[in-house]
């Protein structure tokens, strides 16, 4: 069932002392591939740790694959595969044994874990290199090995933290293809945290966008893109007159010389543009719908929200607390 929810949170809050990392998060992640986006400090890592049951939420509740994140962390971790962002492999071990051991830690029989390690490493493209020490691996091979560790027990949900980070074009392509195959052919779900919008767009149908620990946007990428739908025209002669006429008609126009992008307001937008052109005598030599990329969408949302890192006020929950911590001790604060 496609609409089945795999992650659901209600008023999920996580504070580290006075620092509010996740603030009343209400999420509903469907089965399939979902991108987890957000600038640095948005709370992505905290969110992942919380849903893995590795850290306890301060308030609120949530479920992953039907298990309560507060009390059933073990059950959740048995059914998901986690691919950490940073180096998470022992450089002195062979890839095959590292993957086998990660399977044994899930409770797999050693013989079965070894067989599955072979299959997983073959699947992620490591092939015969699996007998080499991980310390001799390239970044791409290390990323693939981490993915093999995550896939060894055929989890229902794979949480991949920056899976294509630091990879060259070929390795990146293969990683994207592997994740896509896992979703499409394997019918598994992927929650992919990444800063590379292009990769997220290629793998995922849905996104969750976090900002300062709060939910900024969530839904299908196609639907979210509609908020940034524009029509691009190339004008010859009378461009200024045309721009003014369209603005007078209530259209939102962004202009860069003869190229203009007009916000899509409805089915009659094209007609209105052409009518304005006819009135002003401007020639429209090219007209097409401009499809925003996920990066455009991200920037638009961030522009609306204010794309800055967390301030002390954000981190500490209240201006009073922030002042207290920021102020030096002799001024009544507790900070430097």
């Amino acid at each position, binding site marked *: 069932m496609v609409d089945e929810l795999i992650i659901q949170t209600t008023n999920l809050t996580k504070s580290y002392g006075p620092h509010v990392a996740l603030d009343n998060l209400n999420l509903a992640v469907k089965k399939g591939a979902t991108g987890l986006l957000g600038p640095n400090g948005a709370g992505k890592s905290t969110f992942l740790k919380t849903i*893995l049951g*590795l850290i306890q939420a301060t308030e609120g509740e949530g479920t992953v694959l039907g298990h309560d994140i507060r009390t059933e*962390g*073990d*059950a959740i*971790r*048995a059914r*998901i*595969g*986690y691919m*950490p962002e*940073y*180096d*998470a*492999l*022992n*450089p*002195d*071990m*062979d890839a095959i*044994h590292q993957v*086998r*051991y*990660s399977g*044994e*830690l*899930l*409770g*797999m*029989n*050693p013989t*079965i874990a070894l067989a*599955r390690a072979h*299959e997983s490493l*073959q*699947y992620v*493209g490591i*092939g015969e290199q699996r007998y080499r020490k991980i310390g001799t691996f390239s970044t791409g091979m290390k990323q693939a090995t*981490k993915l093999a*560790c995550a896939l060894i*027990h*055929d989890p229902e949900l794979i949480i991949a933290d920056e899976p294509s980070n630091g990879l060259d074009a070929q390795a990146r392509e293969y990683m994207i*293809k*592997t994740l896509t*195959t*896992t979703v499409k*052919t*394997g019918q*598994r779900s992927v929650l992919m945290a990444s800063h590379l919008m292009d990769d997220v767009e290629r793998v995922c149908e849905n996104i969750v966008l976090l900002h300062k620990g709060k939910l900024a946007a969530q839904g299908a990428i196609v639907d979210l893109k509609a908020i940034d739908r524009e029509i691009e025209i190339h004008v010859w002669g009378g461009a200024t007159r045309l721009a003014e006429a369209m603005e007078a008609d209530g259209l939102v126009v962004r202009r860069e010389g003869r190229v203009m992008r007009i916000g899509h307001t409805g089915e009659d937008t094209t007609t209105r543009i052409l009518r304005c052109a006819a009135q002003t005598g401007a020639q429209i030599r090219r007209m097409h719908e401009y499809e925003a990329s996920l990066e455009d969408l991200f920037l638009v949302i961030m522009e609306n929200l204010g794309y800055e890192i967390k301030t002390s006020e954000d981190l500490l929950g209240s201006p009073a607390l922030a002042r207290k911590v920021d102020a030096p001790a002799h001024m009544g604060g507790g900070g430097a």
Partner: protein
Amino acid sequence: MTEELPEDLEPGEYGAEAPVTGQGRMEAAWGSSEGDEDLSDTQVAQPTSTGHVFEQVYKPWQGELNPRWMRNWAILRHHLLGIFKKGHRPWGMPTRLFILVVFLASLSDAALTLLSGLLGEASLHQLWGVSRDNLYGHVLGFFPRNVLYYPIIAALLVGSVISEDRQHGTSALYFSRPITRFDYVGMKFLSVALIQSIVVLLTLTLYALA
């Protein structure tokens, strides 16, 4: 430039639209036929290999995961067997060599007793073997291994057992598995204790039996 088609041929019969495989020419040059083939025959493309020897196929796994004790046993076995075998926790070579040297040194009392028995040489036994006459040997034998060797073994084993996981970041991967911190630390402690037990208790037992 356009070429005129022979009158008896319809356009397309030359097979211009058909994929060119080169097979026809090769057949004509090197093939075993008489060379009287009808040149107007269209060469049909054969299924060709894409050159891939590996096809990416997701293989599901229907098995069941074992309970907690099996996960703990995996941690214990991984650390314990690492001393003897490849494919488990890679203890450093200096650590393994030191353990071997101390193990052999700890067996020296019993070994000398055995040797003197085999040779019938009492002086050898008095010098180093298990007897009341060789206090010097006892001091040389017990003091170093109890006070110097074993603490060094403990330090070598314990020193990296958790810090390496932090250093390499493997703890992030391991804790994404259904293991608790208590089990993780507990099994590491037990594995180190067992390795030391083999060195200390086994040699002491042999000494006592000698």
